[in-house]
């Protein structure tokens, strides 16, 4: 019977490995692993339920984007409408009166010519 080193360069290192494996052995009972898997999935489930606000937030984001787009469209439409109104006002105020007095003047001139002719004919 001899004594020899169990650990070390000349020893049986597999003893160390075996001892490490025994020390770090995972539970072998299948029920343990089933229970751990259930606990993990419960946490995952809670996490998913806890994040119910995520889809809501996504919809809110879409809503904000849609509202922004609607606002932009509305402001463009408003600007165009103002432009159109301004043009109409320009035409109404600036262009229309310029032609109307001319016509009146012509009519007046025509009327005064007639009057002059009439006066000339009936004049003694």
């Amino acid at each position, binding site marked *: 019977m001899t004594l020899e*080193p*169990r*650990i070390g360069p000349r020893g049986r290192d597999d003893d*160390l*490995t075996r001892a490490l494996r025994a020390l*770090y052995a995972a539970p072998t009972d299948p029920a343990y692993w089933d229970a751990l*898997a259930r606990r*993990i999935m419960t946490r995952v489930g809670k996490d998913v339920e806890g994040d119910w606000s995520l889809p809501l937030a996504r919809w809110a984001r879409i809503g904000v984007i849609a509202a922004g787009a609607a606002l932009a469209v509305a402001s463009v439409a408003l600007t165009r409408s103002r432009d159109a109104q301004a043009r109409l006002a320009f035409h109404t105020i600036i262009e229309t009166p310029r032609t109307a007095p001319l016509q009146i003047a012509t009519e007046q001139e025509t009327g005064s010519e007639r009057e002059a002719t009439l006066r000339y004919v009936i004049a003694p």
Partner: protein
Amino acid sequence: MLAAPNLHATPMPLEPPTESEARARERVLVLRAQRGHREAFAELVRVHERRAYAVARAITATHEDAEDAVQEGFLHAFRALDRFRPEQAFGAWLHRIVANAALDIGRRRKVRDADALPENVSLPFRDPAEHDELTRRLVAGLRDLPGRQRAVIVLHDVEGFTHGEIGEMLGIPEGTARSDLHHARAALRRRLGDLRSER
């Protein structure tokens, strides 16, 4: 006219799936889980939880911390599932996440237990050979190792991970993992070298 084959006439032998079959099945599970099928993710949990526990156990101080790290790791993996590329190995990706969760727990515990006695650190989940001198001395030797060296020797010698895999998990270069393993073994040999056994 050909008769329809009776699939139930002869029972098919139940053989374990080959590696490529297992990988293909895992890919299907991952894709389904990414589309929101929780049952597919539950199946991934059942397939990977033991190995994930081993990774966490190598890094954390206690069995309870390892359990917490596994749960947190799977939760993080579930949240990050849309960033996972199915052509990757799911196991390697998951192990990195679990290892990070275990390292985080270790850091938190370090802060929390700054004043605690060192006896609380690195005790094994079970001590099947409590009266064995080698085991007793090994526990003491592991306790004295730096945390990373302890993780490296357990991941390599107990779980059989390669230096490269360990490096990826712990976020260190492969060469560092190799050198950590060398130093850890040397320290344990020094510690346990005088143990003698009868042959």
